[in-house]
């Protein structure tokens, strides 16, 4: 059977002008209704539309672009460190510069790249996958993005002054206390983290409510794509975990500026309280930055294996289980702090146990490849490599769950290798694969498969050359976060290899950015469903119209576009050509939380400058706190208050009910 998928595999051969998938979108757009809906849903022209857009697709793409900018910045910081470490006794960087670089590298990659990039995919994909026209709170969505940009700028504000955060991404006290670190460095960290936390919480609440209420009729829980499960789990975790780090940062800021004794030991404070609060946030967070990425693999890898995911229910349950257990393992970051043995044993056991749900996903991916009809596309290469890198990073993780081994390995390069295998392996490799997979949907154009193989080769080879030898360096005893090492320690050659690998990896990322740009300008047209995917986002045109679905679909199975192949005769099919039309204004459908029954017509807000204004108003508020200028903070607080009142002002009273417009 020749499908669009098979033709897509011959991309290099096909005519560069002809769309890969020349068929019309599976979701019907009635001609008159299409124009009417476009008028209603399109952003206003000009700057107002640019700054005021609440379209989840534009916001999603902005998230992706911004996160890639931070990836590049964090990457350059990493390369600077690798040049410093390429040979023994190097003095290119001073110890203080090195401290700031590894701190900002960690903060940037973990907070400003890894999470936001996944928010970008989820923002873009959720309504399209769920069969809705937007997220539950479009203005909140825009707010979450603008807050992310503002907080990112805030965290970098002191970088050019040479006073960036310099106590690592987890900012341990007492090293970060006013006594040992009197500059503005740590205050920027504390306030910046609280600032960014608002963005994350706001975004998480939006995802949770969207999942509960903004689905197509029939999109029941057992039909959700796994990325939705992943982002949902991550969002619930963020709601419950972010306050811990915000509180810890507030306490530290108090300790540093108001003389309190939360962590400061002379007045009865406890430095370990910082670690407890930070890691009870930090460990759920590391799952929040991998679970949606694992969801990406679970959804997109099967498309390139031309079969449904093996073990859907198990993978969905494993996703949730990982997070539940993930809230009970934070102490494994504190094995070496002298805690009671009973507590350590419990957390060691939980850390071993968490390997089980992770392994479920790995085995279902392997089984999907094994039993599928694989096409070796660039997305496939990236997703398959995720499995390998996840297993390597997972095994080194299980090793350090053992107390005895952890005491040997903690604070060495072994840990650096482990965390990069899991974070780059599961997050970045999945993300680059996902860009190759969904770029055609977002832009209507294919990325080059030929260049993509070079990108993959450089990234995969460079990554392993850079990080595999770090395990060895760690076993030799090379400590992390030390700016240089002596020539007699025997680390020199291995470090040079690591640096060469890091640069190869960076060249691969650079080529990837160039390839995206070229494809955006001159890629081959994609058509609605170039990979022959099964989920709803492939049923609309590429790029999708501003209203997503002219007719809200009615869902009958997990794979609406594969039903002709998968369903038995007589089973009900999804209906993409008849249903709710809702063209009486900017409307979409809300459903009941569990069963997905039509429940309410939601009038959606149009463009609004309030989200941008609120983000801008928070800059003087946090700036006032940082500079201890009460008037500046006061202006910011007042502006925030006024904007919030405007935000929640009662809308024009509408009819309390309405007869829905339908098609068919």
């Amino acid at each position, binding site marked *: 059977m020749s499908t669009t998928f098979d033709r897509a595999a011959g991309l290099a051969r096909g005519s560069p002008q002809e769309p890969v998938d020349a068929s019309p979108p599976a979701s019907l757009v009635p001609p008159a209704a299409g124009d009417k809906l476009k008028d209603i849903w399109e952003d206003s022209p000009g700057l107002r539309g640019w700054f005021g857009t609440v379209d989840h697709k534009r916001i999603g793409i902005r998230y992706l672009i911004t996160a890639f900018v931070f990836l590049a910045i964090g990457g350059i910081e990493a390369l600077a460190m690798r040049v410093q470490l390429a040979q023994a006794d190097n003095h290119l960087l001073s110890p203080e510069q090195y401290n700031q670089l590894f701190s900002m590298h960690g903060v940037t990659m973990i907070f400003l790249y890894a999470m936001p990039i996944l928010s970008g995919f989820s923002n873009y994909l959720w309504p399209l996958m769920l069969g809705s026209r937007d997220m539950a709170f479009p203005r909140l969505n825009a707010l979450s993005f603008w807050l992310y940009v503002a907080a990112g700028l805030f965290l970098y504000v002191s970088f050019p002054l040479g006073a960036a955060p310099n106590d690592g991404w987890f900012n341990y006290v007492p090293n970060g206390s006013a006594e040992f670190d009197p500059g503005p460095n740590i205050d920027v960290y504390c306030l910046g983290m609280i600032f960014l936390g608002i963005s994350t919480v706001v975004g998480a609440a939006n995802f949770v409510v969207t999942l509960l209420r903004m689905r197509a009729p029939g999109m029941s829980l057992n039909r959700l794509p796994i990325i939705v499960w992943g982002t949902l789990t991550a969002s619930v975790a963020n709601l419950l975990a972010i306050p811990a780090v915000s509180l810890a940062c507030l306490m530290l800021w108090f300790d540093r500026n108001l003389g309190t004794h939360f962590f400061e030991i002379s007045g009865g404070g406890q430095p370990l*309280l910082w670690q407890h609060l930070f890691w009870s946030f930090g460990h759920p967070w590391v799952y929040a930055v991998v679970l949606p990425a694992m969801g990406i693999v679970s959804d997109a890898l099967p498309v390139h294996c031309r079969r449904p995911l093996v073990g859907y229910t198990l993978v969905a349950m494993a996703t949730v289980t990982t997070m539940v257990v993930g809230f009970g393992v934070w102490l494994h970051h504190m094995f070496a702090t002298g805690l009671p043995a009973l507590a350590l044993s419990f957390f060691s056991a939980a850390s071993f146990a968490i390997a089980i749900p992770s392994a479920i996903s790995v085995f279902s991916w392997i089984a999907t490849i094994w039993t599928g009809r694989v096409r070796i596309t660039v997305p496939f290469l990236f997703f398959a490599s995720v499995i390998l890198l996840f297993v390597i990073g997972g095994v080194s993780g299980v090793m350090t769950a053992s107390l005895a081994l952890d005491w040997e390995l903690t604070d060495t390069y072994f840990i650096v290798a482990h965390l990069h295998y899991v974070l780059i392996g599961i997050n970045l490799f999945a993300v680059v694969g996902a860009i190759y997979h969904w770029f055609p949907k977002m832009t209507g154009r294919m990325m080059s498969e030929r260049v993509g193989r070079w990108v993959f080769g450089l990234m995969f080879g460079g990554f392993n050359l850079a990080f595999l030898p770090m395990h060895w360096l760690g076993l030799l005893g090379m400590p992390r976060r030390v700016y240089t090492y002596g020539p007699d320690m025997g680390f020199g050659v291995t470090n040079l290899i690591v640096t060469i690998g890091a640069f190869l990896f960076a060249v691969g990322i650079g080529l990837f950015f160039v390839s995206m740009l070229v494809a955006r300008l001159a890629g081959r047209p994609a058509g609605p469903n170039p990979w022959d995917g099964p989920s709803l986002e492939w049923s609309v045109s590429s790029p999708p119209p501003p209203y997503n679905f002219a007719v809200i679909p009615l869902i009958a199975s997990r794979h609406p576009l594969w039903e002709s192949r998968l369903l038995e005769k007589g089973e009900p099919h999804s209906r993409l050509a008849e249903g709710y039309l809702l063209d009486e204004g900017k409307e979409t459908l*809300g459903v009941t939380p569990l069963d997905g029954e039509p429940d*309410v*017509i939601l009038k959606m807000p149009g463009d609004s400058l309030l989200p941008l204004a609120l983000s801008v108003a928070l800059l003087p508020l946090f700036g006032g706190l940082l500079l201890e200028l009460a008037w500046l903070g006061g202006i910011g607080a007042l502006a925030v208050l006024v904007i919030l009142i405007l935000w929640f002002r009662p809308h024009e*009273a509408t009819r309390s009910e*309405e007869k829905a417009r339908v098609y068919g």
Partner: protein
Amino acid sequence: MARAATASTALPVHGQGVVGTPWWGMLCLIATEGILFVYLIFSYGYLASQSRGSFVPGGPPALGLALPATILLLSSSGTAEWSKRAARGGNLGLSRLALGLTLLLGFGFVILSGVEWSKKPFALHDSAYSSIYFLLTGTHLAHVFAGLLALVVLLIWSLAGRVHAGHDQHRTLVTLYWHFVDAVWVFVFATVYLSPRLV
């Protein structure tokens, strides 16, 4: 031949209470702020358990002001609910009256808390106990302030005739948040005033 048509049955627009999306958004806000207090109370317990000697200077804090303040705050939850239900029943005058009463009770709580703070023999930067005491009660007080602000704005909108029968959701959500602020106080009260009496 398929064509566009208007359905015979009607669906609610926006929806009130659990049918609307804002109610679920408020639930998320309450969840995340509720857990903030869990971490605060955890920090209190952690600092108390790790302290050498007595954690609370001068023995358990007196209940003379805290008990009346608690009664004021909890009864304000009742009046807030009363105001919401009166508005739902169409009696806007009574609703505004009950809303005003809620504000009085809420500000009463703030004043009593302020008096209690000013009478403390220690300052914020004196010890781990003073730090967590002021942070825990202060965070709660900030939430009371936010709730009062929302109630004031609601009262102004009500008097200006801007919230109508179709805006039941505004009342529902402000009342829900106020209930949350009051319920959290029970846990803060138990931590600060009752737990030192138990150990």
